[in-house]
């Protein structure tokens, strides 16, 4: 049995069902650890006081909003090139979760901006490009919903997803390319993080929790999408949960 076996919606459906609880538990456990560190271990920030604790949702949500977009575009591209049904379904399953994290990034950012910058919103490069990311997700979902034939919808929305990838490096590097109100990266791959170890640990635990949550919820969603699109096939009718 090869990996291609699970590229068919029919075979991926039960596998996804088995994986969901595992990722959900990983998410719950790491969220509990992350929240504990974030509120009880990480010290008060010398400059921002307790307001900085928003970082434990803001940074992980922002990371996930960008990362999910890349994964979604990857699946959409795979669907376009190889014409595999499951890839496009995966892309569709990821979009609402990505949109949610983009919204949470903007929401928590606004609530962080108010006490530290004195404003909920400013049209600066980082904030604006993150807002564009939210609109890309919503546009992708709207396009999928607007086109009746699912295979044509896959093609059109897949193209939109791929074109939108350009926005992700713009978000990431916006704080270097433009003079923004938003601060630069506190954590990067090329140098030591500029924050206390406990703060970093809490942030990474929360990021891991959001990551596992995203996998769990999109696998659960792709199962529903598979059924919606394959409802007329015998294998779907023969499922135990269909027969009851």
């Amino acid at each position: 049995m090869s990996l291609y076996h699970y590229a068919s919606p029919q075979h991926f459906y039960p596998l996804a069902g088995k994986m969901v609880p595992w990722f959900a538990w990983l998410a719950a456990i790491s969220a509990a650890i992350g929240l504990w560190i974030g509120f009880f271990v990480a010290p008060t920030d010398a400059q921002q006081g307790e307001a900085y604790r928003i970082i434990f949702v803001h940074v992980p949500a922002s990371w996930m909003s960008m990362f999910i977009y890349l994964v979604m575009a990857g699946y959409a591209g795979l669907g376009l090139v190889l014409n595999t049904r499951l890839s496009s379904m995966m892309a569709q399953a990821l979009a609402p979760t990505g949109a949610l994290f983009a919204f949470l990034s903007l929401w928590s950012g606004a609530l962080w901006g108010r006490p530290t910058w004195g404003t909920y919103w400013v049209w600066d490069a980082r904030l604006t490009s993150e807002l564009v990311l939210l609109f890309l997700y919503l546009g992708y979902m709207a396009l999928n919903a607007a086109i009746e034939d699912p295979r044509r919808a896959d093609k059109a929305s897949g193209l939109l997803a791929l074109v939108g990838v350009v926005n992700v490096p713009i978000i990431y590097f916006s704080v270097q390319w433009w003079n923004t109100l938003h601060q630069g990266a506190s954590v990067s791959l090329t140098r030591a993080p500029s924050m206390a170890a406990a703060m970093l640990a809490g942030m990474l635990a929360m990021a891991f929790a959001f990551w596992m949550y995203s996998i769990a919820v999109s696998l659960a969603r792709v199962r529903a999408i598979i059924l919606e699109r394959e409802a007329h096939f015998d294998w779907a009718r023969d499922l135990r949960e269909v027969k009851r």
Partner: protein
Amino acid sequence: MNWGSTAEFFAMGGYGFYVWGSFAVTAACLIAEPLLVRTRMRQALEQVRAQAGKHETAA
């Protein structure tokens, strides 16, 4: 330990509105989304049952 009392914990050094506003909305969204997915799954199963019903009357 950062907090002397529960009240101090909820006050968040005067930033309670901003900190809890972020965490509460995040928590609400991450609870609501799986519930929406569950509803969608139930509807998808109904859809398959409806198709199966049609199939049987045709046969």
